[in-house]
């Protein structure tokens, strides 16, 4: 039977339907002919016999038709199973030959798993953050709109409630225009009330986003009228955590800032706008009249809008600009200067800040993958050479070149797919690590996961990797199978063919060049990060505790009570043992919520045109604030000297930048500027503070006594004599003595705010650093492998040299020179490559040029040193060869 099937496969494998049909026809014809002949032999005439045969046979056409069909099915099945059996044969063979070389397989698999895993994890992030559309219908039509005041250098302004109503009416190229403002409110009552992130939203907000509530509804128009229902919509997360996922939640009351609100809707889980953490949405009409100024210039809302179908953001902007110019003419008091706008897709706004960084990272990880490919190709090449005899033997017994290439490529693909599978497992962990490492800054972190698309990517990358590192070595290895010569060629005394050595050198060069690019990138990031964290923020963050909370409003009490409460709190905290000093302000540096700087003018100086005045952040500060923060007083007096009476007008300490720019060449102490129609007298100059971002000082700041600007939100800064974390409890208790049941937004050592502020650069630095180290390690391993291999091949030659009297040092130098040659070429090529590539990193770097000389010197030195080590270790063996042993032995 085995014989028959073998023969059948050799002689009768119809290639196409035509052959099947021909076979059936032949078979039936044979039958009819035999029958006819028999009938003739029985004495019938040929015609008669023929007729009788047809009669006995029955319906020939129908039989033929049935046979065609069955046989065609059969052939297809046979071909399928042949294909599978040859594939599984190849795979079995590949698996067996890889098992025979466990060391090689292990190194290759680990390398591949690292490379593919890192690439897949990075792609998950890029896919989740950059590629996946936002969870809104026709999300590409969602835009943010900012009014601009170019003259005053405000490019991302806000709008007032009053103006927003005009916008909704006038902007016909948008189907909905909504305003919103992020905030925090105290949720619940009792011993531990907590802050929840909220957003006040206008009537157009939910229509613009186009999502319905999962439970209940969003707001009705009448709920956006001042004095309307006290309704709120809550997030899915809030509903789960605070309301126990109650299906009957609609109509329940919740307490926010001590007032009761009715829940009218619960949003779906993937609805997270404006902030990922936003838990409660309220109507803008519910904001206390006290908090927001009511006029046209009470700019407090951010704008989101939906473009009508077919309208581009550019066309939308043209209409906004046109409207703004008309408003500027109609309402000069509030709108002068606000004559242009910026319109950007929401997706771009959300991910814009990280897009370049993520793409750079994806590029970097791609380079790592390339290094992996080169490294594995190198190993395959070495293995291919070592298997020369095996392959030659296969060729000698009849395997064609195509068959050998297929065998080797199957091996590569098997390695790649197995490595890829391991890589996907690694990517699962890697993605978690990436998201954890990204901290707060990475937008849409919740959308980052390993899903079908990512898996498809991993499969494609694995196959491409396999083809990349497998094909070339396979072609090379099979090309060398000039059978007779290979079989004859003994390991004895042979030096690997010149071609193969050349190929390996080329791979080493490539690997080193790629590593240089990555390590230079990592070096630049590291230098930049070091600069950033070493930068002086303008205050002393060590031993400093930050406490943020909102002061309670007492019904009926005058707003001045806020100031006295605050004063009491500060004084009580100062009495806590271990506290050196304490002070309060509205928003401490790096805590956000700075708001818009406001225009001021200096009497006696030329008045700039309306709308183009310089602007200043007025920061209310309690006595002792500057001292507690460690902000140096450069000239004049501190606010402590001010007794707090407002009869003498507002007194201020201005920042150094403001002092130098607004009163160039002279001391501003004693000078006056006019802010909001009131004169402000400068009594001192303080150092600049990086209040919004670590990498820049930003605009002007003027500290004014907090009594002049009573505010609810408060940042308490507490200078401690030891680790501030140990004082968190005592300080909290002290504050609650003054304000019973007070909730806190945060009580943290100030260091952690700095660390948060540096989380973006840290993320990029750590990742690029990891990629750089990976590339470096891979390149070192690759070089080591190549030199070690060449040492083993030339062992006998070295033995002869040593026997003839060559000093071992010379033999060592000879081997190392061979290893280092391609490295030097790689270093030079890599530096050139880095020079070209790192330009795209410029915006990611802080105070470091993309061509930072130190990096460009140190990296090649470091790589060179590692390369020397990687080629020295195996070369040492060549010099230690015992001539007699080697030459005598096989």
């Amino acid at each position, binding site marked *: 039977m085995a014989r028959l099937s073998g023969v059948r496969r050799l002689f009768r494998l119809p290639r196409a339907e035509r052959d099947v049909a021909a076979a059936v026809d032949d078979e039936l014809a044979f039958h009819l002919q035999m029958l006819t002949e028999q009938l003739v032999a029985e004495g019938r005439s040929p015609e008669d016999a023929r007729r009788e045969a047809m009669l006995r046979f029955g319906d020939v056409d129908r039989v033929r038709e*049935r046979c065609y069909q*069955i046989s065609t099915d059969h052939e297809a099945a046979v071909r399928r199973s042949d294909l599978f059996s040859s594939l599984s044969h190849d795979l079995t063979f590949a698996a067996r030959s890889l098992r025979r070389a466990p060391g090689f397989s292990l190194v290759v698999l680990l390398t591949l798993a690292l490379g593919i895993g890192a690439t897949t994890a990075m792609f998950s992030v890029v896919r989740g953050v950059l590629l996946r559309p936002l969870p809104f219908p026709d999300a590409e039509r969602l835009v943010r709109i900012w009014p601009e005041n170019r003259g005053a250098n405000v490019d991302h302004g806000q709008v007032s409630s009053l103006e927003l109503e005009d916008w909704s009416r006038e902007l016909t190229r948008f189907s909905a225009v909504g305003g919103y403002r992020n905030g925090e409110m105290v949720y619940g009552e009792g011993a531990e009330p907590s802050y929840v992130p909220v957003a006040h939203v206008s009537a157009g907000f939910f229509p613009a986003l186009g999502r319905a509530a999962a439970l209940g509804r969003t707001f009705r128009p009448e709920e956006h009228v001042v004095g309307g229902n006290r309704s709120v919509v809550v997030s899915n997360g809030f509903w789960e955590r605070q309301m126990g996922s109650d299906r009957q939640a609609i109509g329940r009351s919740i307490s926010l800032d001590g007032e009761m609100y009715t829940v009218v809707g619960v949003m779906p889980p993937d609805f997270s706008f404006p902030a990922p953490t936003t838990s409660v949405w309220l109507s803008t009409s519910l904001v206390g009249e006290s908090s927001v100024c009511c006029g046209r210039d009470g700019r407090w809302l951010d704008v989101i809008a939906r473009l009508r179908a077919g309208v581009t953001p550019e066309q939308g902007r043209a209409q906004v600009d046109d409207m703004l110019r008309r408003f500027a003419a109609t309402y000069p008091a509030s709108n002068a200067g606000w004559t242009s706008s910026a319109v950007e897709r929401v997706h771009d706004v959300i991910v814009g800040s990280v897009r370049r960084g993520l793409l750079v990272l994806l590029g970097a990880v791609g380079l790592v993958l390339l290094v992996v490919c080169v490294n594995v190709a190198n190993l395959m090449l070495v293995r291919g050479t070592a298997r020369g005899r095996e392959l030659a033997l296969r060729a000698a017994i009849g395997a064609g070149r195509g068959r050998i290439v297929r065998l080797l490529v199957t091996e590569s693909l098997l390695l790649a797919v197995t490595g890829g599978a391991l890589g996907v497992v690694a990517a699962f962990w890697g993605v978690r690590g990436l998201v954890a490492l990204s901290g707060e800054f990475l937008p849409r972190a919740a959308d980052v996961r390993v899903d079908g698309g990512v898996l498809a990517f991993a499969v494609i990358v694995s196959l491409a990797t396999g083809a990349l590192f497998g094909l070339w070595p396979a072609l090379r290895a099979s090309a060398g199978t000039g059978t007779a010569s290979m079989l004859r060629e003994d390991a004895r005394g042979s030096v690997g063919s010149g071609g193969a050595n050349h190929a390996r050198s080329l791979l080493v060069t490539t690997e080193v060049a790629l590593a240089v690019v990555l390590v230079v990138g990592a070096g630049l990031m590291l230098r930049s990060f070091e600069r950033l964290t070493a930068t002086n923020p303008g205050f002393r963050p060590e031993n400093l505790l930050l406490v943020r909370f909102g002061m309670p409003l007492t019904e009926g009490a005058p707003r001045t009570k806020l100031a006295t409460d605050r004063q009491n709190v500060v004084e009580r905290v100062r009495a806590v043992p271990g506290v050196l000093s304490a002070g309060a302000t509205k928003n401490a540096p790096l805590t956000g919520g700075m708001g818009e700087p406001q225009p001021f003018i200096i009497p006696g100086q030329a008045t700039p045109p309306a709308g183009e005045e310089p602007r200043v952040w007025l920061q209310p500060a309690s006595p002792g604030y500057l001292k507690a923060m460690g902000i140096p007083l450069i000239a004049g007096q501190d606010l402590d000297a001010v007794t707090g009476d407002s009869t003498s007008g507002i007194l201020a300490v201005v920042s150094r930048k403001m002092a130098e720019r607004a009163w160039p060449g002279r001391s501003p102490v004693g000078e006056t500027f006019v802010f909001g129609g009131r004169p402000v007298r400068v009594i001192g100059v303080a150092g600049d503070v990086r209040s919004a971002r670590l990498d820049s000082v930003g605009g002007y700041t003027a500290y004014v006594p907090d009594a002049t600007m009573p505010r609810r939100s408060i940042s308490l800064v507490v200078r401690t004599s030891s680790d501030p974390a140990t004082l968190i409890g005592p300080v909290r208790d002290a504050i609650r003595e003054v304000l019973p049941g007070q909730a806190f937004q945060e009580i943290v050592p100030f260091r952690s705010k700095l660390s948060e502020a540096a989380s973006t650069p840290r993320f990029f630095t750590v990742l690029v650093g990891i990629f750089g180290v990976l590339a470096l390690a891979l390149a070192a391993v690759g070089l080591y492998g190549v030199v070690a291999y060449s040492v083993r091949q030339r062992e006998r030659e070295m033995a002869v040299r040593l026997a003839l009297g060559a000093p071992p040092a010379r033999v060592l130098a000879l081997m190392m020179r061979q290893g280092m040659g391609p490295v030097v070429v790689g270093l030079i090529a890599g530096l050139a490559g880095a020079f070209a590539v790192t330009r795209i990193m410029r915006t990611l770097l802080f105070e470091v040029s993309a061509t930072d000389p130190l990096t460009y010197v140190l990296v090649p030195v470091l790589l060179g040193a590692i390369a020397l080590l990687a080629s020295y270790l195996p070369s040492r063996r060549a010099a230690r060869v015992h001539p007699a042993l080697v030459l005598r032995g096989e």
Partner: protein
Amino acid sequence: MPPAEELDLLQGTLDVLILKTLSWGPRHGYAVARWLHDTSDDVLRVDEGALYPALHRLERRGWIESEWGLSENNRRAKYYQLTAQGRQQLRAKALSWSRYSGAVSKVLAVARG
């Protein structure tokens, strides 16, 4: 067209007979037809053509396999041969067939008595 049951019975029967015929060694379709014809004394009358779809079907199922060879008068002919699976099938079918026919004969005998 005959009703389905009849056709099935006929097909099943034909299959067993083909398998039986091939159990003595490889032979081509014409030889199978001749053998069936001669052995059954024309009791089992089938169109000779109906044999071929049955042969191809059996091959598709893997019970028999085929090979082109030369016939006794030196013509190219397709020879069929039982596979191990086919031999097994033959045993099983023959057994159930004789049980079936035995049972039918028994019932008929009782009815007559």
